[in-house]
């Protein structure tokens, strides 16, 4: 590192501060610096001696000439800048920005070198006296002398805005120059950038986009307009990234959103033939996605979309459930509901980002209109019934699972779940008893779903039905194993239904054919032998039989018929012709059922096992019936009119509803008692609210009914009214 002289004890002068006695010291020193600065601004710095200049400035500061030096410096830089300003002002047209940039670069270079020379002052005098450092001083002077000079300030802004406008209308501009110019403004301080450029830029942009939106909102469809808005937003973002401060991005986006979207939001959403509703109807995913993304930026934008979607769903749903045509086919009715749900699930997942608030809106819309039709519970049960029957299209178990899961979604919307339960029980019973279940596994799977949704008590009786059938199988087997004396009798298979688990059906037993009576009595005694204290009642309105029939034309068939039909047909073993009245008397089948039965035997094309005289549809007392000896069928086994779950006739409907209302009364009472027991004293309105809340999973209680129940409970001394406040009730232990 050093190969100076060998070390000897060097003689050092005692330290003494130099005292400057020359009165011209400052002027001479300043002259040196002044000339050097001039050379620097003239691009002649390479010939200057840094050592000398630095030392000069150092000595000036050391001798307490800091303030004067600073003052001179300021003056001097101003002079140079004023010269530069003249050049910039003189530049013509397009060369204006270029000249500005050139001078800016020159000034920056010069400033750096000046700062270096004056480094000692920057480190000592300036901080101590809280002066602006040299470099920052240079920037301030630039700002005040040039950028904010009257001749230049306005022209600079106008030039920049003009170029941006041209770019917006499709021209290509010099982005590099734009970038260096805005960078210069940023370097002068964020307030310079904001005041001298950004704020006016945003104002001008606002009026530009206001005009743009006016121009196109009248003639563009909603989808096209949104596409335009999206394009403009992207353009502006790109523009900012190319030649503006990154913080401007947020602000210009807000401007475009406001002018192009927020100001026209309602008009866009409700635009005829192309607005939101059309997009929903036509499943226009791309347009919907775009609308969602764009309106997300607008305050309350998504709320607007959501509420329009909701009212549309409610409207279409309402017309669906109240359309009399639709009500003729329950399975189709439910299928349409499922389709509608699928449609909107897809739209929300694809276009609305699976937004939870939209899913909630969808759910509440469905909940609203499904309950507008009080047959919805029945129809949904019929739909499930259709799916769980033999011979169903969804042979695939997985697909069936999916469908049932979707149906459960609809089930959740029902307010009257207890009504559904009643119907489901009826339909399940019919399926089980007629042996028409497609798959035991699917039935059980459905039960599990209901149990998960509604709890154990909902499904316990339903499970009881399955158990009964299994037990019955075993019992029948046991019956046949117990005696060999049964060869001469028709073979029977018995299903023993525990009362209470199965839907109650009033049944008047009819007169069974003697062969049947015999074997069934044998069974009865067998059963009662092993099950003490029970009572068996034959349900002749259910059940079916297989009859071997030989017709007059020689054709032999096996007929699968209901019990009632069997009773009727067996009569013809002993008589050729019978009138309606005679049949009625012999069989003791209830009139309505008997008429239906005879109609299905005599009037259904291809299944006319009997002939009716006259051929009319209605059955009068004197109409006569006989076996149709001309009966033919391609199949050996012929099924005659299975007992299919029909949607109820009006009187049946009324009856079911009445039963449901009856069942609700004890449930309401139980809820009232539960609540009062824990709260002891409660006012009328609170009871109403609490009871409704508790029963909500099953049904929506009628306030009038609740009131009646309270009265009844008071009568039975479970509750009492408060003596002073008639609206308060008290629990009586």
């Amino acid at each position: 590192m050093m190969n100076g002289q060998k070390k000897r004890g060097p003689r050092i002068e005692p330290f003494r501060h130099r005292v400057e006695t020359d009165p011209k010291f400052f002027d001479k020193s300043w002259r040196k610096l002044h000339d050097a600065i001039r050379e620097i601004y003239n691009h002649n710095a390479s010939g200057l001696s840094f050592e000398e200049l630095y030392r000069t400035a150092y000595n000036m500061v050391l001798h307490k000439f800091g303030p004067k030096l600073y003052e001179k410096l300021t003056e001097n830089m101003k002079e140079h800048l004023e010269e530069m300003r003249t050049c910039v002002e003189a530049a013509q047209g397009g060369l204006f920005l270029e000249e500005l940039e050139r001078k800016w670069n020159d000034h920056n270079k010069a400033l750096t070198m000046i700062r270096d020379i004056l480094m000692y002052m920057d480190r000592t005098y300036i901080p101590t006296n809280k002066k602006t450092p040299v470099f920052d001083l240079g920037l301030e002077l630039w700002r005040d002398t040039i950028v904010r000079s009257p001749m230049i300030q306005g022209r600079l802004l106008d030039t920049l805005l003009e170029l941006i406008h041209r770019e917006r209308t499709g021209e290509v501009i010099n982005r590099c120059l734009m970038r260096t110019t805005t960078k210069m403004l940023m370097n002068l301080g964020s307030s310079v950038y904001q005041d001298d450029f950004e704020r006016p830029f945003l104002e001008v942009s606002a009026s530009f986009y206001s005009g743009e939106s006016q121009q196109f909102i009248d003639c563009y469809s909603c989808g096209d307009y949104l596409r335009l808005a999206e394009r403009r937003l992207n353009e502006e973002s790109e523009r900012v990234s190319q030649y503006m401060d990154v913080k401007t991005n947020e602000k210009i986006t807000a401007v475009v959103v406001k002018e192009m979207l927020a100001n026209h939001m309602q008009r866009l959403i409700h635009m005829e033939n192309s607005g939101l509703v059309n997009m929903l109807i036509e499943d226009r995913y791309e347009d919907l996605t775009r609308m969602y993304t764009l309106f997300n930026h607008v305050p309350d934008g998504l709320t607007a979309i959501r509420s329009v979607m909701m009212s549309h769903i409610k409207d279409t749903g309402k017309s669906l459930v109240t359309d009399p045509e639709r009500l003729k086919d329950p399975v189709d009715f439910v299928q349409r509901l499922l389709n509608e749900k699928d449609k909107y699930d897809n739209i929300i997942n694809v276009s609305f980002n699976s937004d939870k608030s939209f899913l909630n809106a969808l759910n509440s819309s469905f909940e609203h209109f499904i309950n507008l039709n009080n047959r919805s519970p029945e129809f949904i049960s019929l739909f499930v019934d259709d799916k769980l029957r033999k011979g169903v299209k969804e042979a695939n178990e997985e697909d069936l699972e999916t469908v049932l899961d979707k149906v459960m979604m609809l089930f959740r919307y029902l307010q009257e779940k207890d009504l559904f339960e009643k119907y489901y029980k009826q339909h399940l019973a019919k399926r089980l008893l007629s042996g028409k279940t497609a798959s035991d596994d699917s039935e059980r799977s459905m039960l599990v779903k209901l149990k998960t949704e509604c709890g154990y008590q909902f499904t316990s009786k339903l499970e009881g039905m399955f158990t009964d059938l299994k037990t019955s199988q075993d019992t029948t087997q046991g019956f046949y194993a117990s005696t060999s004396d049964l060869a001469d009798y028709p073979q029977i298979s018995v299903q023993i239904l525990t009362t209470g688990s199965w839907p109650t059906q009033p049944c008047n037993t009819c007169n069974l054919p003697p062969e049947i009576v015999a074997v069934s009595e044998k069974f009865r005694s067998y059963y009662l032998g092993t099950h003490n204290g029970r009572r068996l009642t034959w349900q002749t309105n259910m059940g079916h039989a297989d009859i071997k029939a030989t017709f007059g034309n020689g054709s032999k068939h096996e007929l699968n018929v209901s019990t009632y039909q069997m009773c009727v047909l067996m009569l013809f073993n002993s008589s050729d012709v019978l009138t309606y009245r005679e049949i009625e008397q012999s069989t003791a089948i209830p009139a309505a059922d008997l008429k239906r039965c005879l109609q299905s035997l005599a009037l259904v094309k291809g299944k006319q096992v009997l002939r009716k005289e006259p051929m009319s549809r209605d059955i009068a007392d004197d109409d006569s019936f006989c076996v149709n000896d001309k009966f033919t069928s391609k199949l050996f086994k012929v099924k005659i009119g299975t007992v299919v779950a029909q949607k109820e006739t009006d009187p049946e409907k009324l009856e079911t509803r009445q039963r449901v209302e009856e069942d609700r009364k004890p449930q309401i009472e139980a809820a009232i008692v539960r609540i009062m027991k824990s709260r002891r004293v409660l006012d009328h309105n609170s009871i109403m609210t609490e009871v409704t809340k508790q029963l909500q999973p099953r049904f929506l209680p009628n306030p009038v009914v609740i009131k009646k129940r309270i009265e009844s409970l008071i009568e039975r001394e479970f509750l009492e009214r408060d003596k002073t406040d008639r609206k308060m009730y008290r629990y009586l232990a």
Partner: protein
Amino acid sequence: MWRMNCYSSGVRERDMGQHVSLFLELLNKSSSVEAIFGAWLKGNGRQNSTSAKRTLAYGYITFVCAIMVVSGNSISVPPSDLGEHLGRLLNGTDVSFNVDGETFHAHRAVLAARSPVFHVGLLGSMAEATMPAITLHDIAPAVFRVMLRFMYTDTLPGDDELGTSPFEMMQHLLAAADRCALDRLKLLCAQRLWDKMSVDTVAATLACAMYSCSELKNKCIDFFAAEKNFKKAVLTDGFLHLGQKFPSIIADLRERVGA
């Protein structure tokens, strides 16, 4: 992994439950480690202690335990030797300084790294950046030598290597360091000067530190103003010169002494 074992009634039967025992146990028996372990009672605001008999406040007592692992399975790293290495760098010099007849060779990059002033001069855009030899004014060769050594090694030699008058050398060096923006060197000099502080030296030191080093200046004034020093210091020649050259110092002193 460490475990604290706490025996609330002590560990030895003969102590009859009169104290609480705390043991520190190293759980992974496979390694061995040296550690310092301390434990004390957390006092209520005042002192922590190991043996105070205290009544429990609200039934709680807090033990504070500290474990410091001294050595163990770690790799020892020697201290920095950058200065040493740079100090031995003889080749690759690309600039030479003429200081009052003596020549010193150096590396631009090293000097530029150590001082912003040299950085601009040696690597900037003025004449010196391209001159192979540079003349320095207003600095003694001996002083420059020491400063140069500092820039490479980051150390100051002891007084015995500083020539016949180390005290003067320090003063010159202080000023030079201030001029060349070598702040650490400046403070090292200030420290040396402060170490030699006495009623005889305070005036000279203060004169030197006046504009170059405010820390040292303040300490000198404090020293001056201290009662036991003032009377003697005020009578030295140095003080006389001080008062002549820097009248403002009298005002500072007056303020400090609180006259």
